[in-house]
């Protein structure tokens, strides 16, 4: 319930900020009666109303939830997972696809409870296999990064 309220409050705050920003949207010269401002403002007002209802009466909308509450070990796991994803995004071009995805897959497989050896094998297969599948067979160019010297 507390989290529901917290979310509704931040949504309301975001609506206000975005509304403030949207107020400045004005076309330099316009050919039509409705400019770029009216529609987002209309949405924001509706959204703010919805957030207000959720803030005042969260009980109305939260019948028993199917989702288990977040526990501390869960939060740590989620944070590691996010960290791995961010590392994947950050190293994607710098290190190149193959080394990044091998490291990433190893971390993810361990996080989801795989043992070291099978995880390492899986990571190698995924990193190299997906590179060849997408870059060579499907012709989606992927960055080679540090391995670009090896390019054939």
């Amino acid at each position, binding site marked *: 319930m507390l*989290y*529901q309220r917290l*979310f509704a409050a931040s*949504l309301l705050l975001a609506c206000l900020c*975005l509304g403030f*920003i*949207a107020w400045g*949207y004005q*076309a*330099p010269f316009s050919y*039509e009666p*409705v*400019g*770029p401002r009216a*529609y*987002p403002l209309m*949405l*924001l007002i*509706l*959204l703010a109303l*919805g*957030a207000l*209802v*959720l803030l005042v009466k969260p009980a*109305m*909308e*939260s*019948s028993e*939830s199917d*989702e*288990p509450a977040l526990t501390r070990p869960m939060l740590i*796991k*989620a944070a590691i*997972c*996010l960290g791995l*994803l*961010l590392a*994947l*995004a*950050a190293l*994607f071009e710098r290190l190149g696809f193959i080394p990044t*995805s091998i490291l990433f*897959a190893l971390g*993810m*497989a361990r*996080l*989801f*409870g*795989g043992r070291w050896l*099978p995880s390492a094998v*899986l990571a190698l297969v*995924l*990193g190299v296999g*997906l590179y060849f599948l*997408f870059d060579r067979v*499907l*012709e*989606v*160019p*992927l960055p080679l990064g540090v391995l670009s010297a090896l390019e054939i």
Partner: protein
Amino acid sequence: MDTLSYLGQGFDVALSPNNLVTALAGTTIGTIVGLLPGLGPINGVALLIPVAFALGLPPETALILLASVYLGCEYGGRISSILLNIPGEASAVMTTLDGHPLAKQGKGGIALSISAWSSFIGGLIATIGVTIFAPLLAKWAVSFGPAEYFMLMVFAIVCLAGMAGDKPIKTAVAVLIGLMLACVGIDANSGVYRFTFGSLGLADGIQFVVLVLGLFSVSEILMLLERTHQGQVAVKASGRMLFNLKEGAFVLATNLRSGVLGFIFGVLPGAGATLASAVSYMSEKRLAGDKGRFGDGDLRGLAAPETANSASACGSMIPMLTLGIPGSGTTAVMLGALTLYNITPGPLLFQHQPDIVWGLIASLFVANIILIVMNVPLIKVFTRILAVPSWTLVPAIAIITSIGVYAVHATTFDLFLMIAIGLFGYLLRKLDFPLSALLLGFILGHMMESNLRRALSISNGDLGILFSSPITIGLWVLVAAMVALPFWRRYRSKRSAALASA
């Protein structure tokens, strides 16, 4: 007669060797994805969009791929429901009620084949419905102007919220967030940059693939963290694999009723498979009365939701194809995929690109037949897939997702944006906001704004144009009824609670 000749033309498209192989591959992939716990049709279709794009498939083939994956997922979802008692997604919940008891009684094989058969009948009824009604609706919809379209979209959104059951406001908020996200980027009419915060990566708006994969792949990975499993042990599907004629005849009436019901729910925007399977289960239970053994293994209780489920999956193609307005999360993804090909679904699609429309409709027939032929002998193979542990699955999904996003613009900005959207989606799911509603809002966003502004340009700013034609007025009435529905429902449940306590 026109319809028949077009349909023949469609079969020519669907039965061309390429498309036939595509449909076969799509149904297989779909069944496997549907089987894997936690992955449903939206994830499957979303993951395949970049692949279809990368393969350079022509639009009709890509659409056939996505549609057959969709149908395959609905098929696959029931295997995990029956044998594991784990519904892969919301629409399969009803299947577990009678399906799992049957499996525990050693009738797993019969249950699986009955549900495959029911899905087939449901798909068939709905596909016939699509063939008959889609062209009619398209012909009628050609006369729609921007005002009518705008109102239609408002109706679709209100419908989604009104039908959402216990959380109409959360659904509405989710749709509005989606509509807001669609506003990001340069405004097509005036060239004003909106909500880009000076970022070049956002000037183009949020890419559809980035949003879909963030919402449904990244957030799903985070969700799976809580449900890590080391492969599941399924109840063995032993004994007779095929149902006999007596059992088939026993459920036939249920099949027919639920198929029609499911089709109608599929066509309605926002209602979708979840509601269709629940309503058909309930009504069959009521029809059977005390004689039924619903809840501990009645074949009809299995047949009803399965038929309705796949009928509504096919039925939801109608609003997508004829109006360009998706009725469910999955069709929203397909619509987004079409726009990647610069194809705008809508009534004119029937005139300009009949190959695509009729090819898709014909391939729905074909995919349904492939599924039933494939499923009965291959059930043993599929049940083995249930044993795949998530530590092998998740890294693969995550990397393929990243490739798909990177392939759009070849910038890592999109990857970061995807992760941010994924985290946001995860929080929303934790707080019980429906993500498919957000996606629907995002898809409708551009169309809604441009239609509204076009309508107001025609009337020179007079809001009266939204009330000017019989169609718009009719839609207003429907919107009002839909807004009133949750209030009425709450009032009624309160009153019955009061009566019960008195």
